[in-house]
């Protein structure tokens, strides 16, 4: 890290460490409160510990992908501002659009390294203005929404059953969006085209998950159940490396989008 560059100097590093401390403090606060209440509700320690371990395993690969996007933005913005932004709220598509909008408003573009402090400050303003929307809305909407939903689904048994089905449908809707993307999607820059690899990885992780679930059921391995999802994900990712190594390039690179 170049401490003489204003983008990666002491001030930016201090801000980054402050933001990280805040995120960790908030997360710990909610974990402790939830943990205490879980015990009051009679949820076993082993269930809670399994939740922690499987959530860590589940997070590793996506977090490394997020880290990779920090590096992408570092070319023009230095590494610390993207680091801060992707630790709070941000994602690559949003941060790039915000930075691009700011620089275009100043008559520039995001193609080269930023060397002007006003450009840099303007980018940081743009990134903040767009991304704070949910934080402004939550205090007004979150409680109301939850109460409305709670009231609706707890009205009677039929409503509760329908409520469960609708909430399952909403989850399935989310998963379906990503499944549909693996089958038929693409990205504006053409790097995420659906093709052999995306469908093969999708199918491998589905099959591995089904097999692991069956093994857990058949041999009564309840303790291993929390690991089935992260393991299936890693095997799916590993299969991509295997396909790349053993299959001809025209197959692994075959895309239909």
């Amino acid at each position, binding site marked *: 890290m170049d401490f003489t560059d204003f983008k990666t100097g002491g001030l930016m590093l201090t801000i980054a460490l402050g933001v990280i401390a805040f995120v960790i403090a908030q997360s710990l606060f909610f974990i402790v409160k939830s943990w205490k*209440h879980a015990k009051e509700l009679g949820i076993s320690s082993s269930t809670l510990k399994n939740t922690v371990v499987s959530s860590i395993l589940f997070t590793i690969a996506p977090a490394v992908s997020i880290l990779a996007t920090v590096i992408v933005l570092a070319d023009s913005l230095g590494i610390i501002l993207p680091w801060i932004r992707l630790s709070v709220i941000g994602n690559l598509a949003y941060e790039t659009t915000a930075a691009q909008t700011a620089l275009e408003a100043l008559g520039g573009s995001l193609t080269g390294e930023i060397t002007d402090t006003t450009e840099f400050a303007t980018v940081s303003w743009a990134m903040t203005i767009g991304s704070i929307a949910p934080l402004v809305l939550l205090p007004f909407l979150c409680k109301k929404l939850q109460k409305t939903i709670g009231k609706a689904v707890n009205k009677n048994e039929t409503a509760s059953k329908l409520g469960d089905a609708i909430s399952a449908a909403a989850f399935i809707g989310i998963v379906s*969006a990503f499944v549909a993307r693996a089958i038929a*999607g693409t990205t504006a820059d053409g790097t995420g085209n659906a093709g052999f690899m995306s469908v093969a990885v999708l199918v491998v992780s589905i099959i591995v998950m089904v097999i692991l679930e069956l093994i857990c059921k058949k041999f009564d391995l309840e303790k291993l159940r929390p690991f089935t999802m992260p393991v299936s994900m890693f095997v799916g990712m590993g299969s991509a490396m295997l396909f790349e190594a053993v299959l001809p390039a025209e197959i692994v690179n075959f895309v239909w989008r």
Partner: protein
Amino acid sequence: MQKNYFDRVHKWGISWDIGALLILLAIPVTISTYFNAWPPLKVLGEILLTLIPLYWITAVAEVIIYVPMLGAGGTYLSFVTGNLSNLKIPCGLAAMENAKVKANTEEGEVVSTIAIGVSSITTTVIIAVGVLAFSPVLPYITGEGSAFEPAFNQVLPALFGALAASYFAKHWKLVPLPVIVGVIALVFAPTLGVGILMFITIFAAIAGVLILYKLKWL
């Protein structure tokens, strides 16, 4: 009991939410003050005009859709650390599935909050360690030409494949409609962002439930 706990979570959540807002706003203010580099007002206005319609409308839809899924604590945490659809939501869903608890119950609330809290800390630590220790070597791990590149290009299909297997097996009747609608939407608009696509597939899935319910097939 239920009312009390949820009310407390909202109180804590709103306090942390306001704290996060102040910290986020402090970042550009500090940068501009320290470097004495304030964006011209006209430029700031242009940025507001471009970004607010783009992101604030999506934010309203995101809040409405995600709150019922994440629970109160999970919502306040997720919206601070971001990466909801590709990380926090699947993580919360997987945890509730493993613990066999339902969303919108106190049990679901605590389990999803713990999962999302742990996921937020893990992500923050991985990014921090990665930036401070591994940023020079990271391109060799995830970048073009590395042995791991194919694996990191397929994180999302691998993650959602695992999640799909467990959800789809349980609710197979609800699956075909949203997947088919999603694929059709992508046939006509291949680069459709996942945020918009998700609204379409969620809408299709809920419409499917209502139809099946009316036909008494559910």
